[in-house]
């Protein structure tokens, strides 16, 4: 287009970009335009950059501008916050799934609690409803906001439940804590065979039992025979 000697070696060449996008300051703009009128190299540079920019501009305009922004229609004649029938059905299905999962989890926890209590020994109190609810309560407390936990005493934290539950407390203490002096004293008071009070252990006819030591009674009979002699 232009002679190569004119196209190169011009300090204003790269300013064409600023110029075509209108982002040149007022003073540089005046300098560039006065220079442009007499510089074939800068005219060529400007023409090339303008042509490339124009191609992109035209492509954008013809290919993208006809794509109007989609019109969003809001059904203002319907009350806000009311769901449609499909949404309600789907919500019910989702809710039933959630309830089923929650029920299954609660059942698993209840079975596990019962098995744990059964394995601990027969003298323990059967797991009460309070114990079961105490195991389920933390799961429910995840759903509820924290302020409800603080306001409602029926949903305490897990640590509080373990402290106050009457059925589980003895087991926890017996298994987890070492023997305290009180428990040792209580074990010493447990009746043994050597410490049986004979006056209370002598059988009577009405209270005869095979568990009572019979040798003691024979000795008494022999004593009685000897005394008769």
């Amino acid at each position, binding site marked *: 287009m232009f002679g190569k000697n004119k196209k190169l070696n011009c300090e204003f060449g*790269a300013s064409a970009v600023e110029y075509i996008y209108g982002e040149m300051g007022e003073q540089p703009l005046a300098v560039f335009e006065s220079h442009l009128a007499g510089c074939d190299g800068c005219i060529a540079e400007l023409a090339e950059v*303008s*042509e*490339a920019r124009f*191609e992109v501009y035209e*492509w954008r305009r013809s290919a993208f501008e006809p794509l109007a922004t989609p019109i969003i229609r809001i059904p203002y004649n319907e009350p806000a916050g009311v769901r449609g029938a499909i949404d309600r059905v789907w919500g019910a299905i989702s809710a039933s799934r959630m309830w089923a999962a929650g029920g299954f989890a609660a059942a698993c926890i209840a079975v596990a609690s019962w098995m744990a209590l059964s394995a601990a020994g027969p003298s323990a109190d059967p797991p009460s409803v309070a114990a079961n609810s105490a195991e389920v309560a933390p799961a429910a407390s995840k759903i509820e906001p924290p302020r409800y936990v603080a306001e409602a005493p029926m949903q305490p934290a897990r640590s509080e439940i373990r402290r106050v539950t009457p059925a589980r407390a003895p087991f926890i203490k017996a298994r987890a804590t070492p023997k305290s002096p009180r428990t040792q004293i209580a074990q010493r008071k447990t009746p043994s065979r050597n410490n049986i009070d004979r006056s209370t252990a002598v059988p009577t006819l009405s209270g005869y039992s095979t568990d009572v030591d019979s040798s003691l009674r024979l000795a008494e009979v022999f004593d009685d025979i000897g005394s008769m002699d």
Partner: protein
Amino acid sequence: MFADLTDEELVGVAVGSDPEAFGEIVKRWERKIFALCFGMLGREDDARDAAQESFVAAYRNLGNFRGEARVSSWLHRIAVNQCLTLKRRQKTRSEDFLDDETGENERVFVASGHLSPVNMTERGQQEVIVRKAVNSLPLDLRQVIVMKEFEEMTFQEISETLELPLSTVKSRLYTALKQLRMKLERVPI
């Protein structure tokens, strides 16, 4: 009829025997001249006016064409001068808009028929070529072009978004447009 002649030969024919030979020159260069005017003026209607006036001025001055430069560079120079004149005129009008009525009466020419079916088909093909050319640019260059042309961000905004120096943004856009121009030049449109 004139398709096989060079630009310089067409000027000779137009001056000597058939003025309509100049129509072939217009056909060859109207888009590039319009692009230059659009680059300088930034508005389509102003660019259309400037391009129209540039070709009219060239036609009226065909006798002064000495053949020392190529016709294309001669036309570009005329277009640049027309744009500069138009900008000065607009600046004067913005300061004192009493001459508006006179200016409107001077606008005799209208835009050429770009919406004919043939032109629409050509434009569609051209869009594909331009899109491919833009997509073939390196990512950093393409990014700047998209931000500038499609998102219409300023250099400063691009600089802040990409966390690049302002000079880097300008040079990237310059390089992008130059590479795009080279790619489009290789493909006959």
